[in-house]
């Protein structure tokens, strides 16, 4: 189990998820530390994305999904009746594998979330836009063309823009699903740097295929296989002394 020092931000208890008859998550019990980067690793199709999507309830959009067990954010069950999903998603932001800026200006992309949550005042928006872009390390590159289309940025810039867009609503948790796999190596390194920096303010959970990346950016790692969580703990320990054979085989590159 992940414990050690620091507060627990998210925990799940015997979480099971079904897509119709497919049992995609099996009895996942995990604790995720605040202000740390947690990496989720495992072969394709093992349920990493599915797990991530239970944390901001974006799975609600898939009609075949059925969920059992509990997911707690700051000790509160996010699947309890009466939970405001808009508020939940404000607290738990998400960044996808393919950068998905909206076809609008850079400014409007960043202002999108704040506007949902009722911020209309131009000065406040200006401030949020600047600070979010700064936090995502892209302010200098786009400062002079905030009104230009976000679609004209490079892939790496688009991804950092999407991170900035997620940060603009001041989330507490940032979910990232293979955020660098569509980027070139230089842009990937930049994004990794950013993740390490972001954990000062946020709790970051990142799905990655790339073992080196997990080692470079994460404090904790959880290994998934066939919908089960096999092992979780400090990244250093998992990669040096994996307890389970399957974990060892996976990080040695024997499968997946």
């Amino acid at each position, binding site marked *: 189990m992940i414990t050690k020092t620091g507060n627990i931000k998210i925990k799940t208890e015997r979480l099971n998820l079904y897509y119709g008859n497919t049992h995609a998550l099996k009895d996942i019990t995990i604790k995720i530390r605040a202000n740390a980067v947690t990496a989720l690793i495992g072969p394709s199709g093992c349920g990493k994305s599915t797990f991530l999507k239970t944390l901001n309830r974006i799975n609600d959009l898939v009609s075949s999904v059925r969920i059992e067990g509990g997911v707690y954010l700051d000790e509160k069950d996010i699947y309890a009746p009466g939970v405001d999903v*808009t*508020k939940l998603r404000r607290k738990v932001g998400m960044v996808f594998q393919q950068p*998905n800026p909206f076809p609008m200006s850079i400014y409007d992309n960043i202002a999108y979330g704040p506007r*949902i949550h009722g911020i209309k005042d131009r000065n406040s928006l200006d401030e949020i836009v600047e600070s979010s872009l700064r936090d995502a390390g892209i302010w200098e590159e786009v400062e002079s063309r905030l009104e230009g289309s976000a679609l004209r940025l490079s892939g790496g810039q688009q991804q950092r823009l999407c991170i900035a867009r997620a940060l603009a609503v001041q989330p507490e948790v940032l979910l990232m699903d293979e955020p660098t796999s569509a980027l070139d190596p230089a842009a990937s390194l930049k994004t990794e740097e950013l993740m390490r920096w972001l954990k000062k303010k946020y709790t970051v959970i990142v799905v990655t295929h790339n073992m080196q990346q997990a080692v470079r950016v994460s404090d904790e790692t959880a290994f998934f296989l066939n919908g089960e969580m096999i092992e979780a703990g400090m990244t250093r320990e998992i990669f040096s002394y994996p307890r389970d054979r399957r974990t060892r085989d996976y990080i040695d590159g024997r499968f997946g």
Partner: protein
Amino acid sequence: MVRKIKDGLILGTIYLAAFFSVVLLAGIIVYVCVKGIGSVRWSFLTTVSSVLKGTVGIAGNIVNTLYVIILTLVIVIPIGIGSAIWLNEYAGKSRSVRLVEFTTQTLAGIPSVIFGLFGMVFFGTTLGLGYSLLTGALTLTLMVLPLITRNTQEALRAVPDSYRYGAVCMGAAKWYMIRTVLLPSAMPGIVTGVILAVGRIVGESAALLFTAGSGYLLPGSGEGLFHKIMESGGTLAVQLYLSMSKAQYDTAFGIAVVLLCIVVIVNFLTGIFADKLNAALRK
């Protein structure tokens, strides 16, 4: 070598075909303009035909045409876009959805004179709206509804899911996401639908002759313009048809020129309006 010649021949044929269709289109427009421009005098545009005064004019028909365009669009755009949104974003993939899609497709293939017959009997007689611009506009609504719905639907379908997920992940409610992300992205497709619809509206005579009728008088006042909705009014296309049937070819070509101008202007305005609307939707 043989392959190269073959490729060259095919390419040549394609260019020739493209050239031919452009020339054909340009030729028609030039021909109509040359034949018609002589009739388009100031009095032609600003008076109505009168045997007593000895004038030949289409002012009333111009007003009717604009009236019918606006009235039809005001009715059809909300219905068309609304049903496209429902079909694409809310309804899922049920049997009833396929039925509605099949119906709209079929609706698009029905000859316009049948719409005219239906409109005359149903709107005109059963609903008691008589020969009026409203009856005409309602009839045209049925006719162009598939154009708006289909084009909007295609455009919505082309919007990547990642936009939908992106917006919902920021906490957007579904309708907010549709308004701020989907509709603006789909706007070019919607505009295409509207432009095609305008084309059918201004070109239509069969569906209008027995629904909106062929009245050509100008409304007497501002209030008259309001009452006109329940009065008979022939559009330019209807008048064009009537002029042709009376062998008044000068008038007919004059009307044709004015029609072409109106299509160009309305399409231009539609584009501008869509841009403005887009900016407003995103706020």
